[in-house]
């Protein structure tokens, strides 16, 4: 399980935790997060989401 961080706002996406508030189940790999998901903190879309692994 990897952890990623939004380059714009610092939001952390942890694959183990997922994003249950937005229907992303715990354990969802970043590749499997749907394309219409956007960063909950800054609204950047996944297509623009230049995630860096931390």
């Amino acid at each position, binding site marked *: 399980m990897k952890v990623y961080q939004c*380059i*714009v*706002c*610092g939001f952390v996406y942890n694959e183990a935790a997922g994003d249950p*508030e*937005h229907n992303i189940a715990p354990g969802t790999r970043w590749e499997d997060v749907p394309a219409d998901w956007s960063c*909950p*903190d800054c*609204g*950047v879309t996944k297509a623009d989401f230049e995630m860096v692994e931390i």
Partner: protein
Amino acid sequence: MHPIVILGSGLAGITLLRELRKLDKTTAVTVVTADDGAFYSKPNLSNALMLNKTAAQLALSSSADLATQLNATLLTHTEVRAIHTEYSQLETSAGTLIYSQLVLAVGAHPIRLPLQGDAAAEVLSVNNLADYARFRQHVAGKQRVAILGAGLIGCEFANDWQAAGINSTVFDLAPQALGRLLPTQAAAFLRNRLEAAGIQFHLQTSLTSVDKKGTGYLLTDNHGTQHEVDLLLSAVGLKPATELAAAAGLKINRGIVVDQQLRTSVANIYALGDCAEVQGLVLPFVQPIMHAARALAATLSGHPTALRYPAMPVVVKTPACPTVVCPPPQGVNGTWEERIESDSVRAIFKDENGTAHGFALLGETAVKERTSLTAQMPDWLT
């Protein structure tokens, strides 16, 4: 055809360029910046120490990369001296530039409180990547850091440094932490959590002087008490950078005044981000900038678009006390209802009809309710 010129390469300027390039791949764009033009995530400056990140590691793209990726010209280390609005001309340290449309994305300056003492000029603030690099040099090997200001940035830095093993002490004239954002009991909860993490607070206390002592400083507060520290950082707030716009005759209030299409009082000049005041709102946060950049990109590509703001909660990056605040808009009358539990605070700001206009959530479980609560808040700008 002269280029669209963007002044400033912070989040506002570069996000505008990115959004514009999604709509228009070819119109010439020049970005003028006083620094090296590297793109970085500004919110990450306040939790970079704990992650042991250097300034170089925080820089995500160089100005050369941005220029290639976004098909733009970046003029780095370039100072803009004047805007001659009648000729659509900029006077810069790199010569004269003519713009078709001009965007001011010049950000804000840290507010500096007047301090006495022989080290008053050595007080640091961290408002950009170069500041952070300087700060990291100074903080190496230091044990005790004082922070002036118990607002958002002050609390985030204190938490970051404490986690990095540096003793942090926070001073503020206000009676509570996050005084402008949180109701009383929520603020007390935050303070207790941060104190439990080892951070010291001196509230209702202002500093009067800073003097050199050994390799550090001797601080004197308004009660006459003295504190010895190794480093002092000021984080008392931001003031929109309006000097250039004011000198060019643009209308200024708290920030550069713009309408909902982000137009200033002068034709073909726009402003967004920390320097701009949209319908009375000055919101130096990420989300408002993202919304403004998208609206302005559409306008500049030929589709005039009014900026709209939903309610935009602010995440306070204090891991010792996860906190989300959605402040009620100015001018809304109402009261906070606070529900306190051992591990959380949920506060809702309601008007006399019981309609919610703001909220604050503190603690690991409470912050998860952010999304559902945000959906219930009225829009900020329609």
